[in-house]
């Protein structure tokens, strides 16, 4: 693991010099599509539909970038990447943007020669229990047996949390996620813990999904967001503001359905976002209607969330931390002006 990091850092250092010269924005314009690194299938984030098209909130980020830069959300090519090869693929220029449920951490941001362009999903570790257990809070879990993946940060967070709240727990560890779920489903343990988005996906696999509930506590920070190469500020700005535009659009009430009417809005914020006023697009090196294209073709952040992971989907995730800041969440876009 250490060796990998050293090698990646060394590789990052060598690519840095060249990447700084080549502008990804111009490259993307030249080739006419955005090459986007996605996961090898993670429900709601990036997964194929029955027709073979990639969908998910991570995928929507890529489509939004394509809409902003090229005016067409369809001009994206997807490269499925494993967890281990994702950073190399970005560093070596195989992909232009990595939108693959990647947690923003200091080491990744600094040592690997990458830049995070924002957070499109605030994830965190949570707990799932049977409803008939009668537990309403994680603080009532003293003495519980907990199913968890072995040797992961999940396991570490779990023991930290229980120790901090001076509670005892009995770990039941497994190697693979499927084994953990099977053990929990067969009643080998009272509690199942992993990231909240993962809990939602795994719950569907249980025999009786409705007999289980996810507790409200979130015990770790897993901010997931799109990543670009270090040293290409123009491209970083492009991806960053595309993300902000989606959040800002939700805050201003601009959706893919009403965006055409909203162009005639008298609100200066809406007019600036949609390019009726000001020259935000020009300063970014994009067209004036860059944000209009994003909202029109992909939708605002809330639409994307509800479409792929929201309460109406089978994953059924609440907005929670991903609600807008006005609604008590963490999604906050810098002002578009």
């Amino acid at each position: 693991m250490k060796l990998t990091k050293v090698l990646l850092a060394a590789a990052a250092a060598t690519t840095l010099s060249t990447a700084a010269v080549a502008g990804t924005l111009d490259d993307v314009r030249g080739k006419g599509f955005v090459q986007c690194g996605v996961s090898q299938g993670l429900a709601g984030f990036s997964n194929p539909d029955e027709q073979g098209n990639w969908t998910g909130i991570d995928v929507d980020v890529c489509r939004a970038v394509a809409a902003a830069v090229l005016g067409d959300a369809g001009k994206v090519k997807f490269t499925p990447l494993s967890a281990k090869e994702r950073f190399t693929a970005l560093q070596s220029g195989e992909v232009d943007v990595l939108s693959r449920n990647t947690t923003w951490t200091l080491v990744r941001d600094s040592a690997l020669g990458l830049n995070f362009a924002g957070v499109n999903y605030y994830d965190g570790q949570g707990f799932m229990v049977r409803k008939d257990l009668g537990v309403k809070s994680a603080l009532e879990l003293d003495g519980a047996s907990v199913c968890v993946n072995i040797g992961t940060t999940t396991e570490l967070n779990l023991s930290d949390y229980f120790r901090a709240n001076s509670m005892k727990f009995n770990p039941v560890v497994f190697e693979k996620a499927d084994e953990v779920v099977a053990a929990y489903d067969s009643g080998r343990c009272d509690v199942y813990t992993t990231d909240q988005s993962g809990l939602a996906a795994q719950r569907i696999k249980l025999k009786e999904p409705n007999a289980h509930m996810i507790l409200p506590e979130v015990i770790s920070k897993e901010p997931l967001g799109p990543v670009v190469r270090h040293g290409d500020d123009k491209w970083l700005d492009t991806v960053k503001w595309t993300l902000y535009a989606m959040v800002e659009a939700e805050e201003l009430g601009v959706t893919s359905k009403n965006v055409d009417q909203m162009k005639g809005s008298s609100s200066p914020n809406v007019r600036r976002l949609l390019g009726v006023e000001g020259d935000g697009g020009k300063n970014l090196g994009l067209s004036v209607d860059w944000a209009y294209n994003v909202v029109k073709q992909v939708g605002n952040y809330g639409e994307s969330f509800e479409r792929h992971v929201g309460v109406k989907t089978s994953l059924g995730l609440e907005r929670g931390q991903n609600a807008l800041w006005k609604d008590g969440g963490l999604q906050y876009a810098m002002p578009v002006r």
Partner: protein
Amino acid sequence: MTDETRSHDPGSHPDLPPPASTVGVVGWVRQNLFATPLDVALTVLALYLVYLLVPPVIQWAFIDADWVGDTRDACSREGACWVYIRVWFKQLMYGRYPDEELWRINTAYVLLVAAAIPLFIPGFRWKQWIGLFLLVGYPIIAFFLFVGDAFGLELVETPLWGGLFLTLVIALVGIVASLPIGIVLALGRRSEMPVVRSICVAFIELWRGVPLITVLFMSSVMFPLFMPEGVNFDKLLRALVGVMLFSAAYMAEVVRGGLQAIPKGQYEAAEALGLSFWKMMGLIVLPQALKLVIPGIVNTFIGLFKDTTLVLIIGLFDFLGMVQLAGTNPDWLGFAVEGYVFVAAGFWVFCFSMSRYSQHLEKKLHTGH
């Protein structure tokens, strides 16, 4: 006068039929299943295991299974839900290859089968030519059919390839390329020229000494870092080269085993006839050696075929990978078992066919010495 009382001259008594308890079904069962108390116990135990295992599997896979429908709602979840396989069937077979271009893959399949059939007809006259076509002409045709970008065919990039199609591409390329490279390496390793020999030994030991997963990982993760900016080889191509060289190293050792089994007299006789090295090998040694190691060669092929599933770790979706990918769709979570059973059945069909073909080949080439 009945048969029993008929008298015969000494020595001319016809053979009596064996006792009824030693022939037919009863005899077979007694001899093979209930010969000793231990056999009785084992038979009963085995029957009990079959009883425990088979009915629930049949119940799950056929009786309680759901066959019709297009959505998750069609699955009652009491038994297997084959609707899942049906909905995703196209992707399991072809990956994300565009719909309107699927005829290209199908054409290549048909061409392959059509060209291979004459090879199974005894006494067909142009077998060598068909073999040559399959080894040289067919890969070229298939390449242009699959990739396109020539002859008016649209370019289909390799990230769109997947499913069983990708598994077959990787396995066939590995199989077709590894045998000739392996033979050359095996001959090189037994060569008396020190440079050739050491190169071959080094190559074989290097590739055989690392796991395939490492080879794939290097080809996908480390290799691009050594390339200058903007130079990118296709990911599938990198994986194919890795698989090819890896299986060639294994093949070389299998073939070398065959070469060592050929008696020295064969070599000396060939040399005494004045044959050159290549003629000696091509006409006398290799035909015997390869025949000897057919089981080993097919073993390597089958191993390679199954190893193709490892490409999953470098983000290529083969047959198995596609099933796992399909299982991440939020509408179809929780059908992993159906997917794995389907893939296992698919792999079994291919591997078993290879095994049967090798046995057929062994019988056909058996010359009794």
